[in-house]
């Protein structure tokens, strides 16, 4: 089938490529752009490992065609650290809270966590858990992930990660 030209801004860089219409966004990111930080864990839109941001909100990049992203901005796990390499506060919080083990769900978890903070700047435990319902982790039992999201949110708000219990369940 005929390839389609697309232009997508990925992690701040404009990329123009020809893609087969059936190419999933995640396949475009991984196979054509080498953005292998975004991972694929299932084929039924359940696991959330492939979560990226499309124009600032979280989506599952395995459940979108690359052609649908034409003209839009995509942010992946590889695009959230500062230009000088400093970790994003949410990445730092995942590290500090031991919120990952094998790491496979981590990029998706972090991207979804950032989306939670967009809507809930200081989320309580229940809010975090409810909003991670589309991200599966098999290693951590989620407890430290929840902790990390709350700590990361506080850090993003300008506080120190452990400063307050405000909003904590």
């Amino acid at each position, binding site marked *: 089938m005929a390839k389609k030209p697309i232009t997508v801004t990925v992690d701040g860089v404009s990329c123009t490529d020809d893609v087969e*219409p059936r190419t*999933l966004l995640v396949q475009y990111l991984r196979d054509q752009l080498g953005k292998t930080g975004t991972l694929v864990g299932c084929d039924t839109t359940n696991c959330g490992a492939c979560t990226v941001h499309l124009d600032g909100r979280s989506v*599952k990049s*395995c*459940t979108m065609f690359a052609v649908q992203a034409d003209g839009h901005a995509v942010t992946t796990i590889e695009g959230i650290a500062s230009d000088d390499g400093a970790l994003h506060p949410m990445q730092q919080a995942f590290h500090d809270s031991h919120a990952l083990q094998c790491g496979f769900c981590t990029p998706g978890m972090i991207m979804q966590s950032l989306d939670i903070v967009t809507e809930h700047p200081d989320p309580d435990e229940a809010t975090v858990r409810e909003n991670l*319902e*589309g*991200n599966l982790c098999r290693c951590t039992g989620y407890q430290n992930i929840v902790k990390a999201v709350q700590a990361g949110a506080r850090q993003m708000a300008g506080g120190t990660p452990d400063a307050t219990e405000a909003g904590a369940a």
Partner: protein
Amino acid sequence: MIPTAFEYESPTTVEDALRLLAEGGEDVKVLAGGQSLIPVLKLRLAGPELIVDLGRIEGLRGVREDGDALVIGATTPHHEVATSALVREHAALLVEAAGTVADPQVRHRGTFGGALVHADPAGDLPAPALALGASFEIAGPAGVRTVAAEDFFVDLFTTAVGEDEILTAVRVPKRTGWTAAYEKFVRVAQQWSIVAVAATVRVEDGVIADARLGLTNMGSTPIRPAAVEQNLVGLAPVGEAVEGAVADVAAGTTPPDDLNGTADYRRHLARVLARRAVVRAAGA
């Protein structure tokens, strides 16, 4: 994980989309949010020749008022419906129902109209749409027609929308001041509804003045238990009274019998959830 190859078009007007459908024949699929269609394509359970993406048509997205109705554009994402102030004010039931669809990522992409046209019996929007008496604006080669909710859901995964037609908007009569609850029963959060009951009520002077209910996954299409709605009118919204009124809520239903429960169990759940939904709606 890899769909079969297809041609892809993303028209910018409804007219162009209809023309593409007409030319494309039987092997065309309409893509809205894609949150149900794309998994089906990835598993190769469908292999269309052509996909017509509605995502770039202006005017299909958004919630607006039109007299005594809300008009929800077909490609309005669930998240937008769930967080819309207009919807909260005039069709509260949709706030909770749209907010329970799948997970946040899916709610960012998945669309209100797409989910309704997909008409999965376990989907969370058909029953509320039916309960609210929504009507469906369908564009086709002969122009736009409007179909009432009771005529819209035809069978499993089948609606009144023809192969050469597109759902463009859903009109939801305003029920300002009505309160609502959507009782969804699942084993894990992300799951499709095993059973769910949608209820929206108007309470006056401490009694139920009006009630509208919808049942999810109790048959091949959503069900509106009209007799139960009548039973509820005039009752104080407390457990025992409501329990009696909803006792026959599952009468005549044909729920599935699968991994998540027997048909009998689902009928029982429908009764419990109907009571809970009505009581919670009335207290909301």
